[in-house]
């Protein structure tokens, strides 16, 4: 802490508080999503494990793991910023942050980085648990990290937008169930889009989650549905665009300052 100078202490405190907020309830915020991912893995590998081979030499169970990890990373990054914001808005305690000299950029960075940390923690725990049972290759670790980082960043930003927009818990639940869930389930977590009819393959290309899953999976197997560089550009592009939108909303005080 002594290394952190006074100028950075404000945003650092907010970041630390956001980390502690989910860590205090880690049974719900880390253990629960890990459990869900492992249940998916158990059920799908039981049903399809030996019958389907998506990539040559890659059994379905092994194919499934990176997708499940990434899906959990994304969903938890979203959940972190969105639930923190909606909760403090509904409870009213957001005022404690609004009364401080923190700038909108500092506010943005603290929430964003805490979301990334939550996403990466959940992903790492799923990975470590999965490799106890299944042999999972790593071909390009830098791609794995880059997609996890920018993917969770994008969803953390998306979570801030949703948290600013929503005024009630049911609006947030609707956002989660009707936007985040379909986009993540239809992104190729459970299948390669090459197995889809051509029309749905095209539709999948409009889903930003598809690029995050495919690129992340490329890092493990060295093969994917499209070029990882193209996917990474799409993900970073979305991340930057959403960040600009979020910063604009915060600067305007959207639904925070009247």
């Amino acid at each position, binding site marked *: *802490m002594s290394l952190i100078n*006074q*100028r950075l*202490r*404000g945003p*650092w*405190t*907010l970041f*630390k*508080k956001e980390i*502690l*907020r989910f860590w*205090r*309830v880690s049974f719900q915020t880390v253990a629960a999503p890990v459990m869900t991912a492992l249940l998916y893995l158990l059920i799908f590998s039981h049903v399809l494990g030996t019958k389907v081979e998506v990539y040559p030499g890659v059994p379905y169970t092994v194919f499934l793991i990176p997708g499940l990890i990434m899906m959990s990373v994304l969903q938890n990054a979203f959940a972190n910023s969105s639930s923190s914001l909606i909760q*403090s808005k509904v*409870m*009213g*305690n957001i*005022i*404690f*942050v*609004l*009364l*401080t*000299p*923190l*700038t909108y950029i500092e506010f943005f960075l603290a929430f964003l980085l805490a979301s990334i940390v939550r996403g990466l923690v959940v992903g790492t725990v799923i990975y470590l648990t999965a490799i106890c049972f299944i042999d999972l290759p790593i071909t390009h670790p830098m791609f794995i990290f880059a997609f996890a980082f920018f993917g969770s960043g994008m969803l953390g930003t998306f979570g801030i937008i949703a948290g600013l927009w929503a005024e009630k818990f049911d609006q947030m639940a609707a956002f989660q169930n009707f936007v985040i869930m379909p986009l993540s389930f239809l992104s190729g977590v459970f299948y390669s889009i090459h197995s889809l009819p051509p029309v749905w393959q095209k539709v999948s290309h409009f889903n930003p989650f598809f690029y995050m899953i495919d690129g992340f999976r490329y890092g493990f197997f060295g093969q994917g549905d499209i070029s990882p560089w193209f996917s990474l550009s799409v993900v970073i592009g979305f991340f930057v665009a959403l960040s600009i939108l979020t910063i604009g909303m915060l600067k305007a*005080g959207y639904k925070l*300052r*009247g």
Partner: protein
Amino acid sequence: MLPAIKLTQVHKHFGALHALKGVDLSIEQGEFFALLGPNGAGKSTLINLMAGLLRPTSGSLSVMGFDVVNQYQQARHALGVVPQELVFDPFFNVREMLRFQAGYFGRGAENDAWIDEVIECLGLSDKAHTNMRRLSGGMKRRALIAQALAHKPPVIVLDEPTAGVDVELRHTLWEFIKRLNKEGHTIILTTHYLEEAEELCSRVALLKQGEVIALDTTKNLLASIPGKNLRLRLSGQLPASLSGMVRHQEKPEYMLALNEIGQVEFVLSELRNAGVAIEDMQLIEPDLEDVFVDLVTRK
């Protein structure tokens, strides 16, 4: 010396509602100032504008000389606000919350002694490690006040700090706030307990429908009401000839406004003529409540 708070022609619209209609107000450093007014007068809007939670439609506000819009960081450093609603963060205990709050203002371990002092002075010592969720209403109120003081701001705004608070806490709270005021902190208070404002505050602004309708020292405001109040407890009805003097009534008690002390004689003779007996009688000085009722109903 720069004023602690300065408002120049501040207007605030909420859609069609004109909540503040060109408020001019200057509060000096070191003052103990009361912002009074009926519900919906614009007191909370004014405080939220000072705190940067709302933005003025037009006009300017400054805290310790810093504009709350263009120099919001310096302005917020100078200001500590105790919000009216009993809000809290359910994830942390009292001490953690205070450290976080000070941390947002760039204060670190060097500030811990001050936090300990605030905890001690507000009677929160044995609750310092209790989660905010588990605190009683009164304790939550104390914690809320402590949070506003965590960064030791020179200007402290208390929005209805004693609403629903027991006598003991009010006493503890005011002792501490008076001490802070003596040490040089500017205190701005809104309250519905006018006797608190009368006892504590040296100057008062009275807001009504978004306008300042009175701004003076407490002493001058009290002096603006001539005469005295006569409190009577009667065995029967007040004679009709005296009904024009009634300030307020709760039968069988009546509070009559006297323009001058000689009117006592008139009241007594009217009661005697009507055959109404006096069970109790008291002559009292008008208080801030009388000024308040007088101004709010008159204008």
